[in-house]
């Protein structure tokens, strides 16, 4: 412990520390952006720090990591920007997010990817650029994956679009084997099955007369890509898995030793296609909200480790864009500011997940998938580690108010929902970017 406190040092006092190594009661002393000391009741007036953050009754954890956000910059800054999206992320407890490539222009070009990294470096959370698998996300020619890898891209995806052609996906996976640590992430919806559909195909779509997207659009691609992962030896990550069949396929693939990972979005374990009966486009998303049976299967997959990450698929749209009929409105919903509370309320509180397993799904497991562990995300919280942390009040009850969200957009499907658990503080490289649930920048 230093004799004189370092300028700008701070201590997080009185919290329960939870990371991949376990749980214990500990204070965390931070200086120069790094964890200096971890221990019970560190001595001195501020434990030897300039400043103290109260974590009494709270959980102190590695900052959360979101593999799947749409920040709309460049191209649709009216809906979100890297700055506003990163602020929403920080308020949600995230210290790193992976920005999806369906911007205008898309993230298939070094100059655009560099600009996202540059903007992300000065934001309230680390914004990491993904890179396209194919040029223009059109599923035909490979994007300059090696060049983008050189800029730091580790997560390649055409998200929003599926790499539908089997031959193209196979070549992309083969090529990616020359890029250590890179992963290809698939938006698994066969366009020839899903095209023209606006919600889950089933009892509700049939009743409402809204064209559907069958669950098989997802499971056929996942089954195929598992075969391609086996063929090529390259890892595949499945974005926003939404069906029971897909969960079973991933579980089976892992049991056979094939390197695949999978994420689920909070709306896919909390909402069903019945929500679409309101015709409210807030509930329109791809892949679509499914059935109760799918939710149960996703919960089992989360509980038994089949699912590796909870990722938001945060997809802002302006009120004008969503103020249309269900069929005409764009797809996607906000997620960054509600993901943690939905996980705590819907998964931890009912006993489906332990707290440490929930945080694993929200932090260190996704960090490992996207190569963010090496960049100081996902913990563990130990001396020398980058001080990317969040402090969570697990008992705080609150109600989602769309007008109070930090995102530029308002398209949450959870407005009015009562949740338990909220971020109190978020620290990015030692700097408190959120204090007492307020953003500081």
């Amino acid at each position, binding site marked *: 412990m230093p004799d004189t406190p370092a300028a700008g040092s701070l201590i997080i006092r009185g919290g329960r520390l939870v990371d991949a190594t376990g749980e214990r009661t500990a204070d965390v002393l931070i200086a120069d952006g790094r964890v200096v000391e971890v221990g019970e009741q560190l001595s001195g007036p501020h434990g030897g720090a300039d400043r103290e953050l109260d974590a009494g009754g709270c959980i102190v954890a590695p900052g959360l990591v979101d593999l799947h956000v749409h920040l709309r910059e460049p191209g649709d800054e009216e809906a979100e920007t890297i700055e506003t999206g990163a602020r929403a992320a920080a308020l949600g407890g995230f210290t790193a997010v992976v920005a999806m490539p369906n911007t205008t222009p898309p993230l298939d070009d070094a100059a655009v990817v560099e600009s996202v990294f540059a903007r992300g470096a000065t934001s309230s959370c680390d914004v990491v650029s993904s890179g396209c698998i194919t040029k223009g996300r059109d599923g035909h020619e490979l994007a300059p994956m090696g060049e983008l890898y050189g800029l730091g891209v580790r997560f390649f995806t055409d998200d929003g679009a599926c790499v539908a052609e089997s031959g193209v996906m196979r070549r992309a996976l083969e090529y990616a084997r020359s890029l250590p640590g890179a992963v290809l992430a698939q938006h698994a919806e066969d366009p020839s099955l899903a095209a023209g559909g606006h919600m889950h195909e*089933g*009892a509700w779509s049939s*009743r409402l*007369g809204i064209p*559907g997207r069958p669950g098989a659009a997802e499971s056929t691609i996942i089954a195929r890509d598992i075969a391609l992962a086996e063929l090529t030896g390259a890892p595949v990550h499945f974005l926003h898995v939404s069906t029971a069949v897909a969960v079973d396929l991933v579980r089976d693939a892992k049991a056979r030793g094939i390197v695949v990972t999978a994420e689920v979005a909070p709306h896919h374990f909390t909402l069903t296609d019945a929500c679409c009966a309101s015709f409210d486009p807030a509930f329109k998303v791809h892949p679509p909200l499914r059935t109760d049976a799918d939710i149960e299967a996703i919960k089992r997959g989360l509980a038994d480790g089949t699912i590796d990450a909870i990722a938001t698929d945060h997809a802002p749209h302006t009120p004008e864009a969503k103020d*249309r*009929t*269900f069929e*005409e409105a764009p797809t996607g919903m906000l997620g960054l500011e509600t993901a943690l509370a939905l996980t705590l309320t819907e998964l931890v509180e009912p006993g489906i997940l332990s707290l440490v397993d929930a945080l694993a799904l929200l932090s260190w497991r996704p960090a490992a998938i996207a190569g963010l562990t090496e960049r100081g995300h996902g913990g563990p919280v130990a001396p020398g580690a980058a001080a990317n942390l969040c402090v969570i009040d697990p008992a705080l009850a609150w109600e989602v108010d769309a007008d109070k969200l930090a995102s530029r957009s308002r398209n949450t499907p959870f407005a009015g929902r009562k949740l338990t658990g909220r971020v109190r503080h978020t620290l990015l490289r030692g700097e408190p970017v959120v204090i007492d649930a307020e953003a500081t920048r």
Partner: protein
Amino acid sequence: MRHLLSIDDLDRSGLEQILDLSERFIEVTHRDIPKVPALRGKTVVSLFYEESTRTRLSFETAAKRLSADTMTFTVGSSSVKKGESLRDTVQTIEAMGIDAMVVRHGSAGAPNRITEWIDAAIINAGDGCHEHPTQALLDVLTLRRRRPSGLDGCRIAIVGDVRHSRVARSDVLAFTALGAEVTLVAPPTLLPESLEGWPVTVSYDLDDVLPNVDVLYLLRIQLERQGEALFPSLREYTSRYGLTAARAARLPADALVMHPGPMNRGVEISAEVADGPASLIAEQVANGVAVRMAVLYTLLGSGGPVA
């Protein structure tokens, strides 16, 4: 009832009230001057985002016979062509002072959305593949007039593209609410993907169903869907599911034939059958005006006498 968006908005007694009221308006339409002052001073606007002849004219005639003022908005000649949103369009129209809006739109639930944006009474005149409630009302009215015993136990087969049919969705609800037994007849590609919760039976074989129906309700084959691999060809469709004269001969002697129009003569129905004695098709159109008068009167009337 504030709006008519779905047949689900009406229970059996609500349906019967509208049918009884329709009978009184049929009487009005047979007068020398087929007009009553019931909705004098009210304004009814038709907002049609899809082509329509019979439904739009039928609503406008109904409104005029109730002495309402009418306005018509068709997309072809409007600011929608300049990119105006649905919300802005309906709010602009409402600002002119209207009491009811009759809406046809290509997207399911468009009328439901409009109820969130303006205060006028909204009548669904067909939304995507969702519902067409006034068509179902005129269908049950037409049947009830031919069957004094009502629809209880009436065996109705709905034949054709149920999957994409808003008429079928509303008809299933209305027919079964009044006690009819409904069978859907189509190849699986033209049936809804799921029939969970539908009080119907299903057959893929029209010839099997023919001898055991009281009413055969034929749906229009939407010719623009031919590119979607839903069936091999119109010729094959007609050979398996078309009501040819030969098939019509195998119907029970007193069976009735209905169609919501517009017909593809020679595809789902032969001209001979459409114009034959079993056909209720012309009566359906005639009854449409009275039913729409009843709906407008129910939503906008002061509760005073009809005439």
